[in-house]
């Protein structure tokens, strides 16, 4: 265990964690996870100082996604479970963030995504400190996490 602050990465692959280990490991101890369940287990181990979140989780098994597919299908997509699944995949990162906040994790969260300003504003209303950077840019991510 290093003395560096922990950065929890949640993504459906390995790209974010790989990037973070290469360009952010001077200030962060990077801990990569693939699902909401893994992420929640990780925060029980140690509280992170920052969250780096993927948005789309289309490589995750449907049963590992957060969100009630049937409820979403009924509420938003006229009962269409396929569209509900795509929706849960496409927006999974925000749902993971919601679950982490529910678990008491208040660390700043960063998405690598060009959200419209109002969407970012909404996410902040819901989840507190949330930032978004338009591309993989280590300096911008550091700034967003408050460590530059």
């Amino acid at each position, binding site marked *: 265990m290093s003395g560096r602050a922990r950065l929890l990465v949640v993504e459906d692959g390995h790209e974010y964690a790989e990037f973070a280990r290469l360009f952010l490991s001077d200030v962060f101890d990077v801990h990569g996870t693939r699902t909401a369940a893994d992420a929640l287990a990780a925060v029980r181990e140690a509280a992170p100082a920052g969250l780096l979140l993927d948005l789309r989780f289309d490589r995750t098994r449907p049963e590992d996604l957060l969100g009630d597919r049937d409820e979403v299908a009924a509420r938003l*997509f*006229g009962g269409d479970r396929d*569209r509900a699944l795509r929706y849960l995949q496409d927006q999974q990162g925000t749902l993971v963030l919601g679950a982490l906040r529910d678990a008491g994790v208040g660390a700043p969260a960063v998405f690598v995504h060009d959200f419209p300003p109002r969407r970012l504003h909404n996410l902040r209303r819901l989840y507190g400190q949330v930032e978004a950077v338009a591309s993989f840019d280590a300096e911008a991510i550091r700034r967003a996490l408050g460590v530059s």
Partner: protein
Amino acid sequence: MGRARNEGFASRETSANLETVYEPVGRGPCRVATVVAITLAFACSGADSPDAEALSSAEGWRRAQDLWERREIGAWDAWRALDPATPEGAEAHRRLAEADGRYREGVRRLREGAPDARTALLEGVAVAPMDPRLYLPLARACRDRGLEPRAVEYYLKFLAAVPSGPDAEAARAELQELGPELAGVFDPAPSRAPSAPHEPSGAKGAVSAPIAGLAGAALLGAVVLGVAVLRRGSGSLDRLAERSPELHPAIAYLVGSLRHELLKHRIGAVGDALRALDRGDASEQQLAFLTSRLFGGEPLREAWRGYLRAFDRALGFRLDLRRDPWFRKAGRAIGVIAALEGRLGRHAPGVQRRLGAAHARLRDFDRHLADLVGRLVRTRIDGALLRGVVEEVRAEYLPGRVELDELRVDDPDEPVEVEVFRVDLVLIVKNVVRNAILAVGRAAPPRRVAVDVVVDLEPTGEEVVRLRVRDSSEEAPSVESLHDRRADRGLALVTAALSRYDGSIDVEPGTDGYAKAVTLRFFRALPAWESDERQAA
């Protein structure tokens, strides 16, 4: 837009057949044949219009589109009267030709009781007005399928557009047969009088056989020759997006995939590694990361070509990305990067410079695509739109006869936009409002209908727009029937349209004394830029 939820659009077939003869090809024998064909066709139909000529093409096009948005019967004539030699006229004729095929297919399917007739008709509606002559076969098909209210509507539209001649006589007789309660419907309603810049052409059948044959041959020739030069006549993605709003969902999906998979994860991700290389302090791992993102997995050139093929498949002849300046530059940058495989290292400044320049060009390209997606079609839902829809429905024959105790339209608290083509949105809302009015018309008083808009915040930070049509009738379509395309309800047509826009329809319990609410849901289109955001607020 640009999210994966638009996937459904990417596979949507795009028509690139007859409509293209009306494109301003502008060169060679095709243009000659096209002009001859169009001239002959116009001479045969008598559709040329002095009034239309007097208007500037842009003004004429605006008026023609306005007529169509208001669903005026004269819209088709107004579109057709536009000069195909102008850009606006060419667009109008292209879309008319495209829509015509879909309308005819819809009528055929309806007549044969085949599935998806409504979908085909809806696809036509999304593109351009219907030739008024098609109202008669459509009315007959509706009659034969037991859709009598619809049949009445289309007979009336046909008679308004084609008031005389043998077909008109037959239409009147057939309309009368639908029932004695329809007495009086043959009187032309003032609100239905066509208001196009010229009278509709009702005697288009009076064409001499040799002239018609010549026109047909010329059109055929134009098609054959036109296909040969289609590529030369097609334009950039920006231009296509500007001219063809109906393609925006497909464009959004394609651009979204390209940006996410290639430009974000492979190109965008290596910016820091490149900077480290430039500074001369790149670690072995960072160099390996750079190499794996650019040269690992599917070769960059292959991946790039795959995206070009996807655009080509979805958008067809309308687009030639090899002629698009942004894609051309991006393609060259991809080529530069691909050619550097195996040559990257800490001591190759020339290689680094070329790589850095290509990377910067692709980042510019990504920003350009983001800007393009931000400009795609959006329709504002406000009180004016809702009231316009309600007024149009009330101007229809059957809904106009229902005596309502209350018809309320509540303005949204703030203007909201949705990523839906306006024509489709109007069609969808009209169907729901029409059904509500007809349902309360079959129920005991008090007969109440209300339209309003509610916006909900989702846990994803997105906002969902709920457009509710509440009414006092206990008669409620089941959720299943809403999604059954064989259902004898316009709502089935609505569900087909909604699925194209990632929307949905549902029946909910009514509130405030209403028996039920039919609710349309769309994801709200959020302003892309801060300035838009302030304006919207």
